[in-house]
């Protein structure tokens, strides 16, 4: 397996110069910063003399100002170059991730939920970006500054350095232990928080019944109880937090104390000058930060690495099937043949379709069956969302596997069960597969789907943005917009997978009426839970456990198929 760093290596190469200059800037900042205490020392020593020279002091103060200006400029440069680099890397990586994801097929998305991928493109990319930006800077800074400050301290007085640093291991160990405990407690608190969230969600979702049973008080007291547990754990968290935070400043102060006590003695004994003493304190301050930052930086890199591994997993994923090298093309599709079509989902041995033999010709083919009988799977196979073995599905006389994927799909308008609309204008949503469609074409499609009038009644008509406050489309409206989208494509094969389930009967009848003319000469596969739209079908098949258990016209099936007859009557009851 290739190392996860391979993914980001190209970016480091691409932006090498930028990074190089940035790192030089970081190192320069460190160097100049270390000079300031030296200047301070010289100034203090000068002042400690019997007749200090004002001019020297002034010169030193000016030097500090100039250095500060230089440092500020360099800081700006590294921030812009290195942090900018991390952001550019993030953007390019995200671009690559997104375009890769668009090539993956359904099998992949069945293992990875959209939420999963979202987390990847937000949290994980963020972690990588942090490691490559702040992580690089902070680690360089901490190491260089820490070492340099340490050297300067040793240069002033080695023993004093050892004594001053005595409390530091305590800080490192204490921070480590407490951070670990903090992490654990934080996990518990998070869990309780989602517990609380889940509870309120349940309560609000069943608010009607809570009111009907006068259960408001029961729920309130349960909420109170859960809230108290949450508070208690938060409080425990505060104990750790409340120790960790003052501890770090206390330990820094302890070092200061040791310097005062032992270093003061050294000045008295004239082993070091008063200037050395003050510079030493300045270096000590410089050292505190790297000590505290080390843990943070290590954590940053660890998280970045883990995130990078997760991202790599996505890049390793490949579509299940690849295009044949010399795809055949098909001009006008007159018929689709299914020959002994059996199918099990990848990684499963259970057959979802068994021995389906079917010849689909222009006209409506109705498919009915219980949930899980294989209706949707059949639709998915026809659009090649999953691969099938050779010799099972033919378009005219071409095996589906030999056809180019894009070519095959350009013949099919598929309207899936779950409607997918995008946060954009309604017009854009209808135009999805045909960007250049005129507004007249869009309107015609919408009229056919019996949604035009409703769209016109919205504040901005076809330009109304879906998802805007107040404009919440009903399930039926969404389904009809998706239908219009499919109709607009004007393709010879239409697959409608139970797409009217939320449309009321009256409207549905109108849609069916409108479709009759449109569908003439086209192949239409109509999956439906309702019987009414199937009346005009040329043929209807009944699926059960993936096998065809009945086929014929509406009237034939009514007589000879038990399942069909039963649902038909049941629906009449509901509609009578």
């Amino acid at each position: 397996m290739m190392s996860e760093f391979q993914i980001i290596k190209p970016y480091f190469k691409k932006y090498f110069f930028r990074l190089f200059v940035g790192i030089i800037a970081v190192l320069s900042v460190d160097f100049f910063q270390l000079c300031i205490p030296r200047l301070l020392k010289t100034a203090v020593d000068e002042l400690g003399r019997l007749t200090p020279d004002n001019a020297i002091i002034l010169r030193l103060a000016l030097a500090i100002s100039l250095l500060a200006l230089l440092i500020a400029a360099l800081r700006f440069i590294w921030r812009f170059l290195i942090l900018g680099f991390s952001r550019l890397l993030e953007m390019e990586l995200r671009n690559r991730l997104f375009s890769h994801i668009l090539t993956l097929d359904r099998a992949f998305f069945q293992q990875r939920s959209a939420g999963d991928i979202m987390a990847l493109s937000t949290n994980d990319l963020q972690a990588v970006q942090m490691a490559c930006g702040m992580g690089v800077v902070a680690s360089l800074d901490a190491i260089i500054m820490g070492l340099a400050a340490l050297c300067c301290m040793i240069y002033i007085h080695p023993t004093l350095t050892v004594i001053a640093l005595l409390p530091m291991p305590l800080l490192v160990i204490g921070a480590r232990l407490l951070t670990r405990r903090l992490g654990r407690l934080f996990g518990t608190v998070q869990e309780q928080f989602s517990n609380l969230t889940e509870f309120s969600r349940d309560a609000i979702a069943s608010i009607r019944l809570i009111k009907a049973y006068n259960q408001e008080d029961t729920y309130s007291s349960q909420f109170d109880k859960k809230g108290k547990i949450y508070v208690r754990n938060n409080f425990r968290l505060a104990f750790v937090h409340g120790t960790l935070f003052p501890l770090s400043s206390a330990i820094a102060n302890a070092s200061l104390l040791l310097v005062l006590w032992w270093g003061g003695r050294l000045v008295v004994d004239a082993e070091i000058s008063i200037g050395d003493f003050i510079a030493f304190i300045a270096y000590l301050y410089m050292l505190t930060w790297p000590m505290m930052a080390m843990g943070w930086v290590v954590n940053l890199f660890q998280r970045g690495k883990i995130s990078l591994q997760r991202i790599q997993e996505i890049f390793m994923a490949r579509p299940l099937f690849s295009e044949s090298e010399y795809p055949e093309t098909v001009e006008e599709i007159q018929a689709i043949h299914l020959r002994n079509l059996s199918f099990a989902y990848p990684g499963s041995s259970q057959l979802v379709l068994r021995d389906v033999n079917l010849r689909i010709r222009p006209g409506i083919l109705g498919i009915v069956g219980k949930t899980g009988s294989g209706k949707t799977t059949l639709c998915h196979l026809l659009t090649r969302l999953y691969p099938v073995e050779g010799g099972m599905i033919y378009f005219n006389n071409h095996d589906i596997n030999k056809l180019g994927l894009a070519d095959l799909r350009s013949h099919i308008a598929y309207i899936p069960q779950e409607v997918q609309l995008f946060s954009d204008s309604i017009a854009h949503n209808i135009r999805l597969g045909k960007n250049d469609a005129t507004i007249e074409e869009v309107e015609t499609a919408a009229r056919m789907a019996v949604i035009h009038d409703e769209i016109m009644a919205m504040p901005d008509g076809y330009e109304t943005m879906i998802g805007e406050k107040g404009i919440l489309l009903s399930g039926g409206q969404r389904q009809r917009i998706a239908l219009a989208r499919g109709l607009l494509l004007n393709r010879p094969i239409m697959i409608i997978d139970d797409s009217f389930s939320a449309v009321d009967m009256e409207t549905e009848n109108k849609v069916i009426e409108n479709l009759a003319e449109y569908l003439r000469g086209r192949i239409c596969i109509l999956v439906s839970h309702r019987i009414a739209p199937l009346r005009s079908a040329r043929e209807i098949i009944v699926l059960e456990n993936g096998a065809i258990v009945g086929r014929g016209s509406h009237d034939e099936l009514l007589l000879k198929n038990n399942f069909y007859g039963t649902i038909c009557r049941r629906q009449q009851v509901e509609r009578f």
Partner: protein
Amino acid sequence: MRSKFGYFEDDYVPRERDGKLISKIIAIAAPHWKWVTFGLILSFGVTAASLALPYLLRLGIDQYIVNEELANIERVSGITQLSFLFLIIMLAGFGAQFCQIIVLEWAGQNMMHSLRRKLFIHTLHLPISFFNVTPVGRIVTRVTNDIQNMHEMFTSVVVTGVNDFIRLGGILILLFWMNWRLACVVSLVYPFLVLSTVLFGRLARDVSRQIRTSLAGLNTFIQENVSGVSVLQLFGVQQDSMNKYHILGEDYCQLVLRQIRIFGTFMPLIEFLQSIALSLIIWYGGGEIIREHMTLGDLTAFISYIRLFFQPVRELSQKYSIVQSAMASAERIFHLMDQEKTDSTGIIPLHIDGKIEFQGVSFSYEKNHPVLRNLTFTVRPGETLAIVGATGAGKSTIINLIERFHAPDEGAILLDGVNLQQLSSEWLRKIIGFVPQDLFIIAGTIRENIVLDLEVSDEDLDGILDLSQMSSVVKNLPDGLQTRIGEGFDLSRGQQQLMSLARVLARNPKILILDEATANVDSETEMLIDQALENVMSQRTCILIAHRLSTIRRADWILVMERGKIVESGSHDGLMAEKGHYFRLQRLLNITE
């Protein structure tokens, strides 16, 4: 705010003036004033300790380390004494800071807990119409995340903010006290500091707001495209969405780079100002030392204090954004709090017969879409009414009106001659037993689900179980009544209805409303339900939304509804004789069952 490709920031709450908002927030904190005051007192302690330490250093330098008038022995022992004092103050500071964090966390947690509780209870008492138009997720966010945001503000801004404020004040006082001339000179830096902070605050706020919007837009886009990826693939428009994506990603990246530039200017600028202050101290302070107006120790102390002074300034921008988001949360919380609760008070009649009358009732959820049209009927005490009709005929709405989830637009509903609107809704729901079609299960055992908040003895419960036929279900369960629902064990639809019946029986209501499950129920359970209904219905006024023949035939009176209107009504025999809708329905049901 509208951005590219249709993302809208969900800031739907009307803006409230900050002053009003703050006074509301203070009102929440008020009951916890003791803890807050204690925390503030500790805050002085923490500040005093952190300022005392550099001062001790100064004393050490001036009085002992560079004081050549004293003998070396005295100087060393003086340093040791000072160090000891230093240690004590350091420990005291540590203790005070620890206590402060704990005390304020305690206060903050309790504050948020009571706010959360209040908000939750308030929400439960809001009218159903509120829930009809507000997505569940949004309400949940108020009770959880928004409160969390406010808590964050409390701990990381209010608390440290007060600390910082006291510290800044303390430092200024000390500086002027030590050497007012030098303090004045150093003050030359402050106008620049204030100016750049204010300017930066504004720039940073604007850019981070833009970034938030842009990022949310980007995330929505990714979310939609990932979940709709097969649609994109089927329609062959991947390239299209890739192009759009590039635009969004590029926009976001540009904004972030701008943020880097802003921060990249501000952070070094602050450090620069700090160094300038240092130079001023060395230059002017050096002069003061030469003029013998101050000592070397003073100079060191000045340097340390200036360092302490600049620390909070750097963290300012971060705090600013926390305050921003907390304020937005507070606004949303108070908006929810301002929603009017339903009034559950009203008349509580002493005696009840159970006569229900609908007098010309019309109702609609949305304007121009009437669901019930001029409905008039009467159910006499003890009588059973069955309502039949197609989906969408308005059957469930009748229940919603009787339960007083909504008020009729026109006409009136009377219980024993009293308008429902005048009755206490709490009392009303107590005397009405409602068996819903959808499940209502609380996490817990079957027993808990049946008794809910009632106190029921085991003997009484056994009686209820027998009457509701639930005992035969319970008998077959591994842990009987103590079986927990939902953890690897679920009741079937029919069993759920039996449990609902048991729940209703335990309350012994005067009026029973049953919304029969449409889903298939196995024949064994069906028999149990029939028996249970028989037991439940006697002695009560009943309204049944019926789907099964056996249930319908049980009724004294049948209403046939179509599109919000009564199209037929009468007894079973009478309606059969009419050979209308009901007759056809019966025939169909006969074939189906």
